[in-house]
């Protein structure tokens, strides 16, 4: 009897202060870390560890059971859903914030707005000169991130209509180098996360309705959902572990958690 009580107490203790693991997207990583930090400050007994590796890595870990929450910058793919099904597991999806991509050019560039079709033409290599989209007679130099970046896929899906990038696109290893290069190259165009926008580069207004309305990349426009190049950021967890992770997920969705979203540079959920 006595041992049973001790066991029970032990079980309770471990379930309350159980360590939670978050793994996945490098885009969500800084947000997850900040959230975990504040969460642990509030709940002294909680222990949350956050690691990156990419959305695919996080979702694979969720299926294997090596993480409690998978952070993802994209929706779960068909193949991943099927894997979960094979293992007879069910997952739950929570949107915790939005991320917006700004299309940027050199500040000396006259062009200040582009339609999605024009962007597609530029990034797939069909439009090669700025004069074709109303600018100076200047060769377009396209910068993109390396294929290992989450933004690479996102931009391809949302802007290029799933077409492949032109092979002449310059692939940069980091967001910082894209900004550096675009600020010193006259004919340059590229994309960066809204959080990384800097004054050395100019953002371009985009239109997703064939040029009827053009929307600038700003936090306000991303918040009211008028800016089209934005994507949700997700947490995925198994329904069986819902109890364990609920406290942390609720914290991320709370007003306090959403304030952190804004601090990190992402777009908070609309209330």
């Amino acid at each position, binding site marked *: 009897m006595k041992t049973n009580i001790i066991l029970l107490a032990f079980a309770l203790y471990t379930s309350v202060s159980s360590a939670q693991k978050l793994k996945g997207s490098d885009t969500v990583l800084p947000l997850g870390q900040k959230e975990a930090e504040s969460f642990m400050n509030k709940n002294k007994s909680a222990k949350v560890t956050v690691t990156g590796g990419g959305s*695919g890595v996080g979702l694979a870990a969720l299926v294997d059971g090596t993480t409690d929450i998978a952070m993802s910058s994209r929706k779960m793919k068909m193949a991943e859903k*099927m894997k979960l099904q094979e293992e007879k597991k069910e997952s739950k999806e929570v949107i915790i914030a939005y991320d917006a991509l700004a299309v940027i050019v050199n500040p000396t560039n006259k062009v200040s707005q582009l339609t999605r079709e024009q962007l597609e033409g530029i990034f797939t290599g069909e439009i090669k000169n700025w004069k074709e989209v109303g600018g100076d007679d200047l060769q377009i130099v396209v910068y993109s991130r390396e294929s290992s970046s989450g933004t690479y896929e996102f931009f391809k899906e949302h802007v290029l209509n799933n*077409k*492949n990038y032109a*092979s002449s696109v*310059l*692939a940069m290893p980091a967001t910082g*180098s894209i900004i*550096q290069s675009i600020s010193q190259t006259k004919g340059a165009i590229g994309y960066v996360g809204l959080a990384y926008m800097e004054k050395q580069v100019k953002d371009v207004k985009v239109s997703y309705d064939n040029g009827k309305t053009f929307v600038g990349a700003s936090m306000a426009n991303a918040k009211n959902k008028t800016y089209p190049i934005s994507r949700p950021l997700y947490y995925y967890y198994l329904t069986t572990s819902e109890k364990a992770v609920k406290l942390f997920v609720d914290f991320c969705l709370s007003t306090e958690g959403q304030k952190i979203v804004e601090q990190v540079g992402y777009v908070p959920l609309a209330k």
Partner: protein
Amino acid sequence: MKTFYKKFLEKFIEGLLMLSSTITTLTVVLIVFFLFKEGIGVFNKKPIEEGYVIAINKNNIVTKISSEQIKNIYDQKIKNWKEIGGKPDSIILFRLEDISNYYSDAAIGENFEGLPNCLSRLIDSVPNIIAFFPEKYLDKNFKGRQLEIDKVTLSEFFGGKEWFPTAQPAAQLGVMPLILGTLWVSLGAILLALPLGLAASVYMSEIASDKVRRIMKPLIELLAGIPSVVYGFFGLVIIVPLIQKTFNLPVGETALAGSIILGIMALPTIITISEDAMRNTPRAMKEASLALGASKWQTIYKVVIPYSISGITAGAILGIGRAIGETMAVLMVTGNAAVIPHSILEPVRTIPATIAAELGEAPNGGLHFQALFALGCILFLITLVINLTVEFISNRNKYNKH
């Protein structure tokens, strides 16, 4: 007792030394084995995503398709079946996500149990469709036809002009632009570094006073200790804009920028090794030359340089070796566009930069992963040839002396 103890200690140390050299050799062999085992696997795979099929209507007369054609179809560059040997009809693209445009969720089923049937019916009803979907959704009595796709061939791999392993649905694995990019950048680097390095080493070994050399040599050797990412940063912020302005180019990230950075990085190797070789010229030979009335200059280029030529070559080749394998600095300044370069003023993508940039997201064991290992094999073979050349040259010199 004391001698026994001493002997035992000697034996023990001997064993320890042998063990460490064995471990080192084994590690190297294992790495090479692993590299080639993974790399060769690429030729056993089809260039489309694993577990996926490409299917068409059974009345379509096209039977075979190359990965390049698949990519062009899905990029809508090929829009008509007649361009790839079919009947003239426009091509309708289908990806699995599009299924909801054709069938309701109820028909597909909550656990996708109705999906194979839907796919089969869809492909049967649309004569000009091309569909890309997972093999497991292939219906048992599938009414369409699967397109044949060849495995990656050697000629496709080495002769292909496009490197685009993340292209969907068919990966493009032509390493030609990468090999050319690597050689292009390294060649430029050596053309810049060799004259400069040689001049500096002649000056330091023959002309400079002791005092000057004692200041200069450590400074040059310091160059070798600077982390490559610092060189890359310097290149991106200083050299890239400079090249862009000087040559009035649309883009400054070029092979030339990479060559300059690599040239600077190869300098310490070239200078240190060739300077050492020149200073090893026997004093007697130099003095004999001077005694015969030769001037200082004549002595340098008739005696010192010929005597130390093997050391100079070794320095140059080791310098190239460093340039070819360098990753981070090049990744930052060459622009990394995988196109075949026509001049030194165009962006290039090198092999090491490709491996470093892409390995992070390549699924373990997949086609892309193995293709990167195959690239590693190519790089390994290039540096192996370079090392053998060094060995050959220094051996040849030994025979000459005797």
